[in-house]
């Protein structure tokens, strides 16, 4: 009796250890638990108004894919705030989806983790060739000289949204083409509790996107040729200061904008609290806030001076979402088939049409459905005056460090503390020192 208990206890202990290690060390199998070639797991980023809306949009398409190929796709829509962490966890554990969406600015950072399957010539052949994609969108798929870590899925660019009625009331005939004009117009429009411009000061990514564009226009790059951060050059400081000054010096944006991080600036623009907004494809959001398409116009994001050329003529980052294949997938063929399906002309038209974004696939982009006045402005920016954020491994850290520095500077400006060249430089210096040494 007693002895059997001993044996039982020992067996139990052994079993526990065995089962626990089995849980912990199962890196050879795919996390989605599908060894079957008839199933794929897809992590979609949140593109529509809600996770449910995305599911409603994507599910019929996935059914279509299943009908064509016999491969069932398990869908999970992941909110943006969680996506990078989830991808990191997947990269660390080797357990993740087969196909996933990534923000295109993360391409080089995620490429460096080695968690994504490179799109070599063969992979591109399998999905119909590299030439099908718009070249600026391909520029945001990984570091230069390496096989892309992803392919473009949805493209976006920044435009200047302006309220037609407020402009007419203030006697402004045309949207501003330079920042000086924007500030002058903004001052005219800032009165009676309304402001000329809405900014999203607490949103790290928004901040960085604008820092990048202003930086290009001032001739600043945030990384040197060897990939080392150069945040504190006079040009970079001037660029960041110019953007913070919308609240600090020009006072054309409401101080309250400094804490906006949940797209409140879009709501402010839609409800007439602000007359201008710098945003990527805001159409569907404005509609959901009750603003009619005829009430606003979309113009190119301004330049420093009229007739800008070269880098000073950059007025948008190449914004968008990419589609990547997880390296540890055990169904490469199926995954590539799925990528081919999602980037096919028909799906591109349908999905981008639903989300209000631009197809990065040439054949789809030329479809008349995307020739609306505002999308034409964005497509023009994307084709002619957009540049990808630095495709370096530390890009995601750059977004956080500089975005946070700018958030703090906005907080100072909103609280009435002076924002000077020195204080901007100090904030950027602190951001630079947070960057990993490598």
């Amino acid at each position: 009796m007693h002895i059997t208990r001993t044996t039982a206890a020992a067996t139990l202990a052994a079993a526990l250890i065995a089962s626990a290690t089995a849980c912990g060390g199962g890196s050879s199998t795919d996390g989605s638990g599908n060894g079957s070639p008839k199933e794929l797991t897809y992590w979609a980023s949140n593109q529509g108004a809600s996770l449910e809306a995305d599911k409603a949009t994507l599910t019929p398409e996935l059914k279509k894919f299943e009908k064509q190929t016999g491969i069932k796709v398990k869908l999970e829509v992941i909110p943006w705030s969680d996506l990078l962490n989830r991808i990191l966890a997947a990269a660390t554990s080797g357990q993740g989806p087969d196909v996933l969406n990534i923000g295109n600015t993360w391409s080089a950072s995620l490429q460096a983790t080695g968690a994504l399957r490179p799109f070599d010539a063969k992979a591109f052949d399998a999905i119909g060739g590299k030439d099908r994609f718009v070249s600026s969108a391909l520029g945001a798929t990984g570091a230069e000289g390496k096989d892309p870590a992803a392919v473009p899925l949805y493209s976006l660019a920044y435009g200047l949204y302006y309220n037609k009625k407020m402009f007419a009331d203030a006697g402004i005939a045309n949207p501003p083409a330079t920042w000086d004009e924007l500030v002058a117009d903004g001052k005219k429009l800032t009165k009676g509790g309304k402001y000329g411009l809405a900014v999203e000061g607490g949103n790290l990514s928004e901040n960085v996107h604008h820092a990048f564009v202003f930086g290009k226009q001032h001739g600043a790059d945030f990384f040197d040729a060897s990939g080392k951060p150069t945040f504190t050059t006079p040009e970079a400081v001037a660029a960041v200061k110019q953007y913070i000054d919308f609240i600090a010096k020009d006072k054309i944006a409401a101080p309250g904008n400094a804490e906006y991080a949940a797209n409140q600036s879009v709501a402010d623009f839609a409800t007439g609290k602000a007359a201008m907004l710098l945003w990527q494809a805001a159409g569907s959001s404005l509609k959901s806030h009750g603003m009619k398409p005829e009430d606003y116009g979309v113009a190119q994001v301004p330049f420093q001076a009229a007739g800008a050329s070269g880098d000073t003529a950059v007025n948008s980052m190449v914004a968008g979402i990419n589609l990547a294949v997880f390296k540890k997938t055990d169904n490469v063929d199926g995954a590539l088939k799925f990528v081919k399906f999602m980037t096919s002309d028909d799906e591109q038209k349908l999905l981008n049409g639903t989300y209000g974004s631009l197809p990065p696939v040439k054949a789809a982009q030329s479809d008349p459905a995307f020739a609306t006045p505002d999308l034409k402005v964005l497509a023009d920016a994307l084709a002619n005056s957009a540049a990808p954020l630095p495709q370096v491994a530390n890009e995601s850290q750059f977004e956080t460090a500089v975005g946070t520095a700018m958030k703090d500077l906005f907080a100072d400006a909103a609280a009435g503390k002076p924002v000077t060249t020195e204080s901007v430089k100090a904030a950027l210096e602190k951001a630079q020192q947070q960057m990993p040494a490598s």
Partner: protein
Amino acid sequence: MTATVPPVRHSSKTPSPGGRRAAGGRAPLSRLRLPARLRRASLPYVLLLPALALELLIHLVPMVVGVVMSFKELTQFFISDWSAAPWKGLDNYRVAVDFNAPVGEDLLKSFLVTCEFTVLAVGLSWLFGTAAAILMQDAFRGRGLLRAVFLVPYALPVYAAVITWSFMFQRDTGMINHVIHDQLHLTDGRPFWLIGDNSFYALVTVSVWRQWPFAFLCLMAGLQNIPRELYEAAAMDGAGIWQQIRRITLPSLRPVNQVLVLVLFLWTFNDFNTPYVLFGRAAPDAADLISIHIYQSSFVTWNFGSGSAMSVLLLLFLLVVTVLYLLATSLRRKDA
């Protein structure tokens, strides 16, 4: 000790040591050629094995992994195979405690903010909890309802509760500014609560709101154990309410308070949820708690080695404080 254990009945049934039936590798444990005495002596340890194995898996392994990581240069280049990351020796630690360089300076600043925050939040939670527990002792109409209401903050899911606070703290649309500025005219302009220096007070407010019901609950239970006769006797001797609290209530609650303050300290010092939900991944400098700071160092800037080093330092600090605290409180009890 084992020698004094009386022989167990079944021992006579097992083959004697060296018996032929024990031969062969596949024999179960009971048939092994161990002397009966040794077998009995080992029994407690065998029984402890499952617990030991689980303890190893749940606590020690991750801790060792964390410590190993802290000696490595672990960036995104190595996260899919972190064992391949190059060794960095003590560099991560050196950088973390070099208070003249930016990383160390920020860590120290964040540590000091956390200390200040912890003292304030624990102190206030304890004060409110004690006051409420004492007031709730006497039966009155609606006491049960009030007790239940007091526990609501503790029962609410953290995320839902804190996100509600973050709405209330919004500068332009939040309820807090509506009350203190629009209605009571206490401030000149609308202050910011979620960015800038005020964020510290916003954080303390939410933290106290979340924690004090726990103090209240513990102290209420503690109060039940104080005999009513003590108060009756004290009242008879002419002791007022304050004297009763000072001479009877607080000393009787000391054992509860010892545990309570320690637990509150550890929770508050390590609190991650409250600042994260309130401020997002980039907390304002004034409210840059150490947990958020370490999270940002490791997960947001993807420098896991440096983040691990900071975590190990934090763990050591909390261990030292806890041990000192336990020593101090248990010594006092021996003196008493």
